[in-house]
């Protein structure tokens, strides 16, 4: 009997081009759009900050700072603009105009006399000026930090000299022994490009010897956004597809087919079991197709994670299928199902992290998100694709999804009693 219900679902899907498009093509389209826009095709997780650099000083110090800024991987630096047929160096006025027009996010002005003031270790004198677009709250502070880093890396000797001058000014002159010790320790001028210039660098040492070591402890950083959006979009569309396909139950009620089905040897329990199995298989196929697309087009690392992916997909699809059946059994009509499912799924997807990563939300919102189906499913997928988790480490997510499946199926069975003997 269950096999016959499966066959009905399969033939209906096979003949319904619109349902095929909504189930298999639309998720791929949405995923691709998200991956292209937000994932930056998986090659640059975060876009570089575009800045204009106006070097009015033309000193050794300003040139070193300029080179250090251009070597920063987080920045895309423009030092000249095309005027007519000629490349013209950017000055203060052009830099400000470029920020106003939105050509760049911020501008750095190295004013005239900067290098001389630094070399004389003067406390007073010209300062580096940052011009930024106030509508971008991130770019300004980030740029400020990067400029300070560039200055320290470009001229550590001058910075130490400047610091000592300030010390002597307020604390008194150094003794001959102290000055000799400092001269032995004082760093030599840094060659441009010697440090902090590439993503592969692991240890950065400041002029004062305090090192910061960075290392990737899990995941392929280039693939992470793609894996996240594949899981997020996949789970959201899984819910939409299952809710839509679960509506076949309502079509059968409205056409009188359910009456005929239940007049046969088929019981309501068998009918629901068959439909749930069909929805689960459809969901597995839908998710597998989308992740395969991600692997082929966006270099998603699917092959390395197949066992975890399959386990998560089967359990998630099963829970989504049960969810779809519950919604259908709770609805009075197809139109009502459509309205309820749209509101519910969009809300769950927003809270559960399908649209915006939960790990970027506040702690309270992260906890609230755990009441949704999406959060547990996404946590499981991210464990697989980001953290390379072993299968057994997925048990909390699998347990919750299995419990949700049982809860949804039980609810659907109770709600469907109204179509049984009255």
């Amino acid at each position, binding site marked *: *009997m269950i096999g016959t219900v499966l066959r009905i679902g399969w033939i209906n899907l096979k003949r319904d081009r619109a349902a095929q498009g909504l189930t298999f093509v639309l998720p791929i389209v949405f995923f691709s759009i998200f991956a292209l826009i937000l994932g930056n095709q998986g090659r640059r997780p975060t876009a570089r900050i575009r800045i204009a650099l106006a070097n009015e000083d033309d000193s050794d110090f300003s040139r070193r700072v300029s080179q250090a800024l251009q070597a920063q991987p987080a920045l895309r630096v423009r030092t000249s603009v095309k005027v007519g047929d000629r490349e013209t160096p950017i000055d203060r006025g052009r830099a400000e105009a470029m920020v106003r027009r939105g050509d760049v996010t911020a501008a750095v002005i190295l004013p005239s006399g900067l290098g001389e003031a630094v070399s004389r270790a003067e406390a007073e004198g010209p300062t580096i000026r940052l011009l930024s677009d106030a509508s971008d709250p991130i770019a300004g502070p980030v740029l400020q930090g990067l400029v300070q880093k560039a200055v320290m890396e470009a001229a550590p000797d001058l910075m130490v000299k400047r610091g000592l001058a300030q010390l002597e000014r307020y604390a008194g002159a150094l003794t001959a022994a102290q000055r000799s010790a400092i001269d032995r320790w004082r760093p030599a001028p840094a060659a441009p490009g010697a440090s902090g210039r590439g993503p592969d660098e692991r240890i950065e040492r400041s002029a004062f010897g305090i090192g910061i070591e960075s290392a990737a402890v899990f995941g392929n950083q280039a693939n992470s956004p793609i894996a996240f959006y594949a899981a997020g979009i996949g789970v959201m569309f899984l819910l939409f597809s299952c809710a839509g396909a679960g509506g076949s139950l309502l079509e059968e009620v409205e056409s009188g087919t359910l*009456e*005929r089905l239940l*007049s046969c*040897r088929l019981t309501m329990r068998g009918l629901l079991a068959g439909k749930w199995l069909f929805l689960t298989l459809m969901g597995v196929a839908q998710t597998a197709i989308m992740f395969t697309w991600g692997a082929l087009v966006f270099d998603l690392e699917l092959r390395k994670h197949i066992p975890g992916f399959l386990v998560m997909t089967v359990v998630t699809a099963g829970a989504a299928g049960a969810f779809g059946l519950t919604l259908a059994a709770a609805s009075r009509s197809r139109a009502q199902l459509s309205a309820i499912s749209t509101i519910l799924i969009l809300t769950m997807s927003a809270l559960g992290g399908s649209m915006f990563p939960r790990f970027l939300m506040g702690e309270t919102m992260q906890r609230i998100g755990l009441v949704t189906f999406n959060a547990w499913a996404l946590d499981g997928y991210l464990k697989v694709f980001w953290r390379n988790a072993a299968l057994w480490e997925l048990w909390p997510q699998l347990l919750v999804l299995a419990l949700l499946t049982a809860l949804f199926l039980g609810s659907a069975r109770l709600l469907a009693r109204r179509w049984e*003997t009255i």
Partner: protein
Amino acid sequence: MLSVAARGWTDDATPPALQPDSRNLEQQASVIVLSVRGACKAFGFVTALHGVSVDLRQGELIGLLGPNGAGKTTLIRAITGRVALDAGRIELFGHPVAGAGPRAHLGVVPQDVAVYPLLTARENLEVFGRLQGLAGADLRRQVEWALERSGLTDRSREPVQNLSGGMRRRLNLACGVVHRPPVLLLDEPTAGVDPQSRERIYEMLAALRAEGTSILLATHQLEEAEARCERIVILDHGQVVASGSLEELVDQTLGRRRLVTITLAEPLAEPPPGLSADPGHLTLRTQLRDVVAELPPLLRRVEEGGGRVQDLEVRTPSLQSVFIHLTGRELRE
């Protein structure tokens, strides 16, 4: 045919009605295959069935008539086990209908065209055949039989949504009989179909009856019920208000009187005694208990009164007359 039906019986005792070799046709006709006794069902404050009793004998075709809301569909749903009675008992071959065993011996043709529109006619027959317990060679044979009987063999591989309304109705019937049930329940099987499809549907029913199938037909088509059903049950307000053959119903309700209508060539100044006249006095009417004995004197009286008879009509009360007499002219919806 009967052996096919008996094959699916799940209880230990094979229904005696399904053993044709042991009984002659006369005996079979007296076997009650479906028995409804004192069926009562209320939905809230609305009483749908109020003590309904009906017996269906083997090979019999009963017409179940009644205005909308009279309880016909509720009765059919109760027989299929889809409505739980508040009181009363329904037995199929002596077994309560609740449960899948007895239900396998029922064929149900609902009022709606309850098939899958994206599946072909053949696929629909296959899935409903499987859901009725058929498989393998039996299933293939029965599907071919149903397609042939419903005249859909040539269109069997087209999705149902491409078929005409009449074809869908025939398929609706075919899906209900694909497992060749000994008892068939039909709810308005010919609603909205053309005369050709209607004729084919009744041919199918006649063929099934010839094989011993017992049929309960709920319908609003009074002429069809009059022509095809050997017994008629009229329901109203959840009760059986009349039951029997058409002649018995006429006797029970209108009596044996026949309506006589005389059309005159010229109007009379005064209608003869015992006759009523239309305002123009061109048409005279009366009722006669014994047409053979009473009609000649009646015509003589008209001629003696100066009337010249142009046309004469003697009408037997129809099922329509009986139905209206029993259920009234008041609209129900």
